[in-house]
């Protein structure tokens, strides 16, 4: 992991703070379907790239997620039915099928 350090003033807290640049490690796999706002684009983003670990004077640390790592609720029309679920934006679309409900498989069959 690449780490760079710099001193800055954490304005909202009024505390001297040490920041650590998070590496460009990313887990983003999203291909949003017609996103309409920057907020929507930010919310889809699962990348840590550009996020900073801020070290505060009291020894605590924090990361402003900048609107990323949001959880989505979507509605999908599958076989004429609207199915509501909480999942990522990139899985929205007419061709997407929900994974099967993983109830126990058939048991006790004779």
């Amino acid at each position, binding site marked *: 992991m690449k780490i760079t350090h710099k001193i800055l003033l954490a304005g909202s807290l009024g505390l001297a703070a040490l920041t650590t640049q998070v590496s460009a490690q990313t887990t983003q796999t999203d291909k949003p379907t017609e996103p309409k706002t920057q907020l*929507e684009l930010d919310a889809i983003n699962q990348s840590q790239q550009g996020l900073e670990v801020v070290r505060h004077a009291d020894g605590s640390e*924090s990361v402003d997620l900048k609107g990323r790592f949001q959880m989505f609720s*979507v509605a999908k029309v599958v076989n004429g039915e609207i199915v509501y679920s*909480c*999942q990522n934006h990139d899985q929205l679309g007419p061709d997407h099928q929900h994974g099967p*409900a*993983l109830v126990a498989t058939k048991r006790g069959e*004779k």
Partner: protein
Amino acid sequence: MSQLKLRTPWALLALMTCGSAFGQATITINNTDGAGEGFNDPTPVAPIGGNTGTTLGEQRLIAFQRAADIWETFLDSDVEIVVNAAFNPLTCSQNGAVLGSAGAASVHADFANAPVADTWYNPSLASSLAGVDVNGAQAEINSQFNSELDNGCLNSGWYYGLDGATPQGFTAFLPVLLHEMGHGLGFQTFTSGTTGAFFSGRPDIWTLFMRDLSTGEQWVDMDNAERVASAINDPNLVWTGPNVTAEFPNVLGNPAVLTINSPGGIAGDYAVQTASFGPAIPEMGLTADVVLADDGTGGDVNDACEPIINDLTGAIAIVNRGSCNFTLKVINSQNAGAVAVLVANNVSPGLPPMGGSDPAVTIPSVGISLDDGALITGNLPGVNVTLGYDTGQFAGANGGFVRLYAPNPFEQGSSVSHFTRDANPNLLMEPSITPTIFDEIDLTLQLFQDIGWNTVEDLIFADDFE
């Protein structure tokens, strides 16, 4: 074992705590919409379902405040929780829509009173534990919801009523909001299920309570490759927090099961998916002959999308999935006299999700697999079945723990950060949104206790022994 599990409706708990000195959380909605749009939309509307707003914006805000009120009633914090909230035009078409999103605005570690060192916490919980607002002027939760739904892009639009009686063709707002706000308050991991990597090199508090029953290892003790494998290892990924583990027998019921009684050649137990609408299967079970529903029209005369033309009186109807809502299939069968409905999947493998909401449904229904549907219809007439429960199991538990959602392949945004879909009754924080869960938080309360939240339930309990 009873199928009627005790739950604590929000209104009851509110009554229990009314006028007391409990340190309930204060959740403040920060309306970030501009003039004339979103929460400020002046379009006149009629009050509906207990929502007294007379403009679209007012109704949105009242419903939002109700969700906040519910969470406030359960959580104990002396630090205000601020939720940035907006209605924006998000993705929407007749094929699907983004309903909304929410999540923590930041993560925090090693703050004052942090129960576990070197571990990430969401800002609402971190502030509550620290006794100070750890992220200063920044909101604790960001959220936005889709204003396009009210323009008819998907269906008839959002239902802003507070009573859970969502009319056919509308999308219930309050259940979606209650669910998403739960994520923002802590029902979320930042450990990647696709790479196995901790967020910025350290685990979050959520990760400490996940175990894979196949290996017996906690996630925090695994390497990245092991976490990736565990994230798709359904039904072996479980939550090991002590509060959820102690409480789930009081919440979860037995899994529903379809037993074929005759003919003997196919007799046995078969898996089913219970519906989010209509009554539960009776505790004593329901036994009847199966009859294939025939609507006499359309591409599939057995899809029950039109009025049924054969007599289903006293029968358990079997219908095919597809072409219309599950609720319509059940209502049409019900109108023809059926006492229950089996909806056979039209894809394999898996079970139909059986989602939807319609108070007109008065009989139970379940989804069955494509193969099982073919097996039953291939033996008609003369198939006698019982819809009942497997009393030897808890629906949604494994090895004495509640399961988390871990399908293969991994579902970004769903996997790991939800309870299993197989819980019965349905839970607020399953990946499927249940329209009828609009005023209770079931096992999420205990999960929040596990990750460190002080709750009003704790205060009531402590007060009893003072």
